C-alpha cells in the first residue's frame, strides 16, 4: 500500500501548477505560522492548509498529517507544561520531580505550548499536502539547472529507497515461506543481503547512467515547459498572504502574550489577517465551468462540468 504522503497525480490545480507556484503557496502558509504566535492566526493557517489539501484531493495525507500534528502538538503542550512553570495561574502542583525540580502546571504554559504545537501541526499538514500534491520529479527537474549533481542524486535516492524497501519485503516473505521448521533469519543476515543487492543495483544504475550520457554536460532543454494556467493564481495568493502578514506584523498586531498572563489580541487587523489566511486555503479550488471547450483535434465538444474538467485535467497532466 502506498504511503498516504506519496505523490499521486490528480487533475487538480495544485498538482497542475508548476512546483514553484505550489511551493510558494504552501510556503506562504508556513511562513505565516512562523511569523505569528496568536492561536487565532495559527488556527487560520492550519485551516488553510487542511482545506488546500482537501481541495487538492489529498484527503488521506491531510487526515494522517492532522493526526500526527495533533499528537505532536499534544506532546509539545505536555512537555511545555512540565518544563516551564512560568505564568501566574497555577492549574496543578505536581510536587518535586527528579531533574525538573518543583513542577507547577500553569495555564499560561499550556497556552504557550498550544501555540507552539499548533505551529508544528500547521507545518506538518502543509508539508503533507506538498508531499502528496507536488510532483517530486518536477521539483528535481526544476532544480536541475541550479544543482545538477544534487538533483540527480536526490532523484536516484527517491527512486532507490522504495526499491530497497520492496526488496526487504520480498526477502522477508521468502524467509517466511521456507516453512515453520526452518531456522529463523536474523536481522543482520537480512541487512547484509539487502546491502549487497543495493550495491549491485547501484553499479547497474551507474553503468546505465554512463551509457545514457549522464557523465557529459547536461543537454539544453529541448522543450521548455509552458507555465500552468494555475501558476498565476498561486503566486498571487502567496504574495497577497505574505504581504498582508508582514504588514500586519509590522503594525505590531501580533498581540499574543502567554506570560505572565495570557492575552490573545483580537484586534481588527488580526481578525482580518486570520480571515484572509483561512480563505487562502480555497486557492486550489477548481472552477466549474460551463464553457464549451475545444478538444485536441480542433472539434468542439458538448462535454462540460466534472467530466469536461476531468478530461481537461488529464490533458494537462499529459502535457506536464
Amino acid at each position, binding site marked *: 500500500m502506498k504511503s498516504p504522503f506519496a505523490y499521486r497525480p490528480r487533475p487538480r490545480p495544485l498538482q497542475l501548477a508548476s512546483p514553484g507556484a505550489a511551493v510558494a503557496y504552501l510556503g506562504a502558509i508556513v511562513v505565516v505560522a512562523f511569523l505569528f504566535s496568536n492561536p487565532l492566526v495559527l488556527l487560520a493557517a492550519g485551516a488553510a492548509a487542511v482545506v488546500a489539501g482537501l481541495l487538492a484531493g489529498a484527503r488521506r495525507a491531510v487526515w494522517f498529517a492532522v493526526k500526527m500534528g495533533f499528537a505532536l502538538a499534544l506532546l509539545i503542550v505536555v512537555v511545555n507544561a512540565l518544563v516551564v512553570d*512560568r505564568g*501566574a495561574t497555577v*492549574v496543578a*502542583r505536581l*510536587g518535586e520531580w527528579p531533574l525538573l525540580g*518543583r513542577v507547577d502546571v500553569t495555564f499560561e504554559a499550556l497556552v504557550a505550548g498550544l501555540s507552539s504545537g499548533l505551529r508544528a501541526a500547521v507545518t506538518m499538514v502543509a508539508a503533507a499536502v506538498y508531499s502528496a500534491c507536488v510532483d517530486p520529479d518536477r521539483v528535481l527537474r526544476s532544480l536541475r539547472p541550479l544543482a545538477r549533481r544534487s538533483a540527480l542524486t536526490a532523484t536516484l535516492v527517491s527512486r532507490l529507497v522504495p526499491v530497497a524497501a520492496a526488496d526487504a519485503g520480498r526477502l522477508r516473505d521468502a524467509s517466511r515461506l521456507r516453512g515453520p521448521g526452518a531456522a529463523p533469519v536474523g536481522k543482520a543476515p537480512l541487512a547484509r543481503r539487502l546491502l549487497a543487492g543495493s550495491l549491485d543495483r547501484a553499479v547497474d544504475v551507474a553503468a546505465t547512467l554512463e551509457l545514457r550520457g549522464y557523465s557529459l554536460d547536461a543537454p539544453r532543454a529541448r522543450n521548455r515547459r509552458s507555465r500552468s494556467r494555475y501558476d498565476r493564481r498561486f503566486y498571487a495568493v502567496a504574495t497577497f498572504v505574505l504581504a498582508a502578514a508582514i504588514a500586519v506584523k509590522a503594525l505590531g498586531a501580533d498581540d499574543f502574550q502567554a*506570560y*505572565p498572563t495570557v492575552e490573545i489580541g483580537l484586534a481588527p487587523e488580526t481578525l482580518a489577517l486570520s480571515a484572509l489566511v483561512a480563505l487562502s486555503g480555497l486557492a486550489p479550488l477548481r472552477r466549474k465551468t460551463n464553457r464549451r471547450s475545444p478538444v485536441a483535434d480542433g472539434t468542439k465538444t458538448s462535454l462540460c462540468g466534472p467530466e469536461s474538467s476531468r478530461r481537461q485535467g488529464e490533458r494537462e497532466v499529459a502535457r506536464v
Partner: protein
Amino acid sequence: MAVASALLCAALATAGCGLGPGADVGDVRLTVTREYGAVPVLETAVEAKESDTVMRVLEGAAEISTRYGGGFVHSIEGVAEGQRGGDPYDWFFYVDGVESQVGAAESEVAGGERVWWDYRNWAATNHVPAVVGSWPAPFSDGIEGERYPVVVECDGGGGACGEVRAALAREGVKVANGEPEKALRILVGPWEQVRDDPAARAIEAGPAESGVFADLLSTSPRASTYPGHSRGLAEADELVALDEAGEPAESLGSDAGLIAATSRYGGLPVWIVTGGTAAAVGEAARSLDAEHLRDHYAVAIDHGKTVPLPLEAP
C-alpha cells in the same frame, strides 16, 4: 481499588501535589521603587500561596509585562527597561536583601520574605550582591528559607560592636558565638582594620566588584586612635560617596560612617559597619535600624544624617 486511589491521593497530597495554587503560606512584603530606592512606586503585602514565586507575587500586585518567555520583567506599572540619557536601566530584585541567583520566575517564596524590586541605572554595575534596605533581613529570617548563624566580627569596633549586637537583639536575632563555618557576618570596626577582610576589601575595587557605591580613601598619616592597633601611625580613612555612574561625587570626611552589604564569589552576604574613625563607626552602628536603612542599597551616616548611596548623578 478505592483504597488504592485513596492511598495515591494521600501520597500526592503529602508530596505537595494538588490542583490550583495551593494553600496560603503567609504574607510577602513587596516593595517597588525606582532610582536605587529613592522613588517609591508600590508598597504592599501579598498573601502568598504554596506555588508562588517572586514573579507571581509581583504579577498579582502590579501591572507588569515580561520578555524571554515570561522569565524577565520588562516593565512594572508602565516603567520599562531601556536607555535613559545613554545609560541602561532595568528592573532588579532582592529577596530579603540578597540578589537572587535565579530569575524571578524560578525564585520561590515561602511566606515572610521581603521582596524589593528596583528600577535603576546599571551603567556602573549590574551586580549588587546584597543591600541593606531590607533590614532586619536577612538576619531575621535567613535566605531562601534557610537560616544561618549570625556573627558580629568586632575588628576594633569597641563599643560599636555592642551597639550592633543590641540592634540585632531588638529584632529578635540571636548572635552566634565562635566562628561558625557558614554564617551571616557583620564586620564592625574602623576601615583600616575591617579592610583586612577580603570581602570588605572589595569595596576599594569599586561598585563593579563589591556593589557598594562608596570608597574609603587614605588621607595624611596621624597617630592611631584605635586600641590594639599594631602600627604607630594610622591613616584616617575618608568616606567618599559615589554616584550612580560609580564616580566620586562627594567627600563625606573621616567622621562619616558607612553601612553596606556585599558578598564575595556569590557567597553569603557580609555586612560592613565602618568609618574612618571610632566615632564614625559608632554613629553607623547606632543607625542600624529600619528607619535609617529601609529601601537603600547602602547608607553613609554623616553627623546623624542618613545619606543614601549611591548619590544621584548630577
